[in-house]
């Protein structure tokens, strides 16, 4: 390793690795990971594992209770609930992962640049973020989807929009502290451009916080997507979505209560699993708790 590299390199990311190790030994995180992996596998492998075609209607088997033929019963069109749940998981996961990925990149970049530049610019940007935060996220998502139309990509945009401001805040705070550190000054003294210092030296140091935040917000994103679908603003039928299935079940709640219960449980488990993983990661990366 050359002298310059040694001088300029940020502290080794051992904190992040140690956090991962610690999170692995935490039973909550382990259970959360298992729940998430099972749901993801069921969704991804739906084309091969699902017992029926999710859109296939069978009028002779309408509103069947759970049985050996239909493990979780059928809906008002005779479609198999289990198959629809597996396919619906794809929508939930695609929308939430897409939205959080976009929000983390856009919000993270805003926070990073705003914190690094500082001064009036920073003040203005954070003011705009505060205004974004003063909208209830579900209402903002609702209106954006309603205006743009209920397409998959618009759901991603709407949910990402509600999550940008929190990511900007999380990226900004450590940037403010890091830019005063010796390795940043050294990098600048060596003639590195601002862009290089920002992305090669500051970014790696805030990545773990952004990623922990991402896991926790993923849980929120799943919940918001399901809520929008429940309201009727999700991906359009006949595509199966968990929120939409819960709504269908709710309309038939007197005849077939299981219709609303199974998709509801699916949403609950995915959100719970993600919260458990996010919680474990946060506890493991929180410096205040690290020494316990």
């Amino acid at each position, binding site marked *: 390793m050359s002298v310059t590299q040694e001088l300029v390199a940020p502290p080794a990311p051992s904190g992040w690795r140690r956090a991962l190790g610690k999170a692995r030994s935490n039973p909550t995180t382990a259970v959360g990971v298992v729940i998430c992996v099972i749901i993801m596998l069921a969704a991804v492998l739906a084309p091969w594992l699902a017992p029926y075609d999710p859109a296939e209607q069978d009028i002779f088997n309408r509103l069947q209770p759970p049985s050996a033929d239909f493990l979780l019963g059928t809906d008002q069109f005779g479609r198999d609930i289990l198959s629809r749940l597996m396919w619906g998981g794809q929508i939930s996961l695609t929308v939430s992962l897409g939205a959080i990925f976009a929000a983390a990149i856009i919000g993270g970049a805003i926070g990073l640049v705003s914190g690094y530049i500082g001064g009036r610019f920073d003040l203005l940007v954070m003011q705009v973020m505060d205004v974004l935060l*003063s909208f209830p996220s579900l209402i903002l998502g609702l*209106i954006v989807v309603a205006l743009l139309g209920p397409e998959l990509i618009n759901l991603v945009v709407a949910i990402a929009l509600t999550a940008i401001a929190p990511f900007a805040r999380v990226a900004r705070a450590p940037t403010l502290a890091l830019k005063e550190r010796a390795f940043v000054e050294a990098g600048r003294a060596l003639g590195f451009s601002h862009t290089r210092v920002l992305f090669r030296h500051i970014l790696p140091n805030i990545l773990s916080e952004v990623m922990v935040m991402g896991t926790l917000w993923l*849980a929120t994103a799943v919940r918001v997507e399901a809520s929008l679908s429940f309201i009727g603003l999700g991906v359009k039928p006949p595509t199966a979505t968990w929120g939409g299935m819960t709504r269908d079940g*709710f309309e038939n*709640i*007197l005849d077939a209560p299981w219709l609303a*219960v199974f998709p*509801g449980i699916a949403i609950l488990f995915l959100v719970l699993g993600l919260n458990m993983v996010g919680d474990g990661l946060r506890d493991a990366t929180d410096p205040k708790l690290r020494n316990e």
Partner: protein
Amino acid sequence: MIGFVLRRLLAAVPTLIAVLTLVFIIVRIVPGDPALVILGDQATPEAIAALHVRLGLDRSLWAQYFSFISSALMGDFGVSMVTGRSITAEVAAVLPHTIDLTLASMVFGVAVGVPVGIWAALNRNGVVDVAARVLSLLGLSFPVFVSGIFLLLAFSLHWRWFPVIGASDLSDYGDRLHKLVLPTVALGLIMAAYITRVTRSAMLQSLGEDYIRTARAKGVPWRRVVWVHGLRNASIPIVTVVGLYVGILLGNSVLTEIVFNRPGLGKIIVGALNQRDYTMLQGLMVIYCFLIVVVNLITDLLYGVIDPRVKAE
């Protein structure tokens, strides 16, 4: 104190104007002509032009912007594109239902979350603490419509303790409370879970401070040390979370109102979405934000009441 309140009130005005501007922009960048949406594809150009005049869309953007901001600050959000009735009046008619629900859920969240959080903090890593942690994680993973449907299935359809229909007569307080129980629990569950966690960690921190040891050394009874010395110092983060989550409660009240078939802002917003009532949506967004700005203001004022050091700054 009055100076403090006035300063905070003045500080809220720029935020409100910024919110109004953002709402104005969001509604304007939507593709498509609202007049065309209302009248349909078959509309004649004359009819569209006439509707533009009626909606004020023929004026310049600046003129529209200033008249929107000035009338909104006076509490006038115009008329609904669909019904032609005043938005302020339509909202005022159902607002009590939404406020009932939001306030009741907030009280439920605090009444459950604070004692459980303190209990968990006092039994750190004990059975109660672990149970509180697991249950609060479960509670905050429940989407409101899922907890609502589960409660409805159990307590309205299976045991028949509570009515299925949530619309109540505002003047009959007993009826109003009875119909509020299930929606409140459904909506307040997440709040209770969050408050439990925040109270637990804030209490753990405050109970480790020197003044707690001093109080105990002086011989102050333990109960008083916990509830007065400990809780008062832990209450800033708790108040912060309550304030932040009122926004989430307001958003989630839309779902609660659908599940329990209650009148309220949520019902109006869903109706406006289905009918593409842009002026109504615009007005509702402002009203939601206004409610949140007011809550933030109250939170700020409470900081001053709880901690005299805040007011002095």
